[in-house]
């Protein structure tokens, strides 16, 4: 049997440090005062302004209109993340269900068309999408923010692969048991895919949470600001001799990291199961 030795640990330790250090630095730096950071740069030593910085970030009514606080931005980010995750899962599951279980003309061709859109990043279609939403009058609405990005080739692809691995006999047994297409989907397929759903949920939530460009285009009302945009906002106050609130920006970055991390930690067992094993 192979026994792990010091060198294996060394590699792992170096890897972990490379991943963790930036986060730790962001946190420790956020506990100092803005002027300190401006003079001394990043630091690993924790400062003594933890409570006040984070309280300010979360509750101070800021922005140009002075009515948006960190907590409201957190709320918006959550709505965006959840909306993306849930919407994408529902839509891609239904699409994959149609592609795998129903025989219709050019189903395979359609799947490959959906699949090739994976190659196109959001930025390619961002202007046409904006134009459509603008014409529909959906600027500055959650609908406008969420709906255009719901179609997901990644999700459809993963669910298709998963459904294909479900044995045909299960469908046949369900048919003999009197389950129609809808019942089979709800009673059998959805419960079977729960690990897959969990994995997709995490990926899609983080994707929605981290959206920057799209919300910036779609909303110009500060009432729709998300955390990610908030960070940027703090840093654009470079007017005259004013120092940007580095500490607050770091604090907000740390805050923005917490929900996705929490999600992954809580669901990591499901996440790994969903992507690696099929529970049949």
């Amino acid at each position, binding site marked *: 049997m192979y026994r792990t030795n010091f060198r294996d640990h060394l590699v792992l330790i170096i890897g972990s440090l490379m991943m963790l250090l930036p986060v730790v630095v962001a946190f420790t730096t956020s506990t100092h005062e803005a002027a300190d950071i401006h003079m001394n740069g990043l630091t690993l030593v924790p400062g003594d302004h933890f409570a006040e910085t984070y309280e300010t970030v979360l509750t101070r009514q800021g922005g140009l209109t002075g009515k948006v606080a960190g907590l409201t931005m957190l709320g918006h980010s959550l709505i965006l993340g959840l909306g993306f995750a849930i919407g994408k899962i529902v839509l891609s599951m239904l699409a994959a269900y149609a592609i795998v279980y129903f025989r219709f003309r050019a189903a395979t061709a359609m799947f490959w068309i959906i699949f090739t859109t994976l190659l196109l990043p959001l930025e390619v279609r961002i202007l046409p999408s904006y134009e459509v939403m603008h014409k529909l009058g959906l600027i500055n609405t959650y609908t406008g923010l969420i709906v255009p990005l719901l179609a997901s080739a990644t999700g459809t692809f993963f669910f298709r692969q998963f459904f294909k691995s479900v*044995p045909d*006999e*299960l469908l*046949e*047994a*369900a*048919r*003999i*048991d*009197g*389950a129609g297409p809808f*019942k089979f989907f709800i*009673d*059998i397929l959805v*419960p*079977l895919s*729960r690990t897959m759903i969990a994995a997709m949920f995490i990926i899609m939530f983080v994707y929605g949470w981290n959206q920057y460009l799209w919300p910036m285009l779609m909303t110009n009302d500060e009432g729709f600001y998300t955390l990610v945009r908030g960070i940027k906002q703090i840093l654009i106050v470079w007017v005259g001799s004013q120092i940007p609130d580095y500490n607050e920006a770091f604090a907000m970055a740390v805050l923005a990291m917490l929900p996705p991390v929490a999600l992954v930690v809580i669901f990591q067992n499901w996440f790994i199961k969903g992507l690696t094993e099929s*529970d*049949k």
Partner: protein
Amino acid sequence: MAKIDIDHVFKTYAGGAQAVRDVSISIRDGEFIVLVGPSGCGKSTLLRMVAGLEEISAGEVRIGGRLVNNVEPAERDIAMVFQNYALYPHMSVRQNLAYGLKNRGTPKPEIEARVAEAARMLELEPYLDRKPRALSGGQRQRVAMGRAIVRHPAAFLFDEPLSNLDAKLRVTMRGEIKRLQRRLGTTSLYVTHDQLEAMTLADRLVVLNKGEIEQIGTPLEIYHEPASTFVASFIGSPAMNLLQGRSTENGFAIGPDLWRLATGPLDDAAITIGFRPEDVTFTRDMRAGPEFLLDYVEELGAQKLVHGTVGGQAVSATATAEFQPQESMRLTVPEHRIFLFSTATGKRLRTPITPMQPAGDFSPVKA
């Protein structure tokens, strides 16, 4: 409970491949019919057409006198047991059993009563709240059968239900299926490629080959009166010996050997001679049958299997455990236990066989 009529049924796939060709079987109420044949013979396709999982290209299927060609599987009043059990992995055994009834809107107390009844019958009571994952193969197969039983269907359809079990369990489960079917008296259609399973379970056997029926009959009929070389070689273990030979005036010529048996006039002299290993007796009498050259012996404990050649073609025979095989022996088979088949078509020839008087001298006879 119902009879099932399969009437001139065809299955043609897009592209023209025919999986089932002109199959007609009329299954009596309460009968246990086994469809048997090698893989690719269309037996599963036929079963799935009865179940409604596969479309019927031509012909009619009637269950209990009702034409079901265009009826959904759930409406056909049948229940099916699959080879890989097809249990819903996320449901407990109880939910698995109840799912079909729930979908049909059966009242709750009745569902509970039927599930309890099936669980008692199959000795599944201790496992009702477990998930299929936590069950052994045999228990899973019993759950699959329970799912069929609770429906009180007109017919059970079994698609190789025992293939995934180990040999010992297969024998036990075979007995259980037989006992259960007797007790419930439900018409059953059972697909298998295992001839032993087919023989032991069936009221009547249907032997399929390349999508067509080779023979229908009781296990003993099929065993003792095979209609073709295909049936003869498929049913029975060890398989029937089939020797290609020619019918001549002096008997059957098998390679250089001559077997002094006479037939009536034959249209085609090219025949295949069939006889079961258990009908062979060995003798040192030179006037008896053809020469058997010993190859090797398999000891089975209660008896032994003697393998060798006759006229260069492989022959096996069963013998008692005490039997001492010689390198060269003479082989005899009672005339009424010899089957003749046309080599060209493989069909059985109904020609009586009579022994011929040996030709005076006792030396080995050559053709």
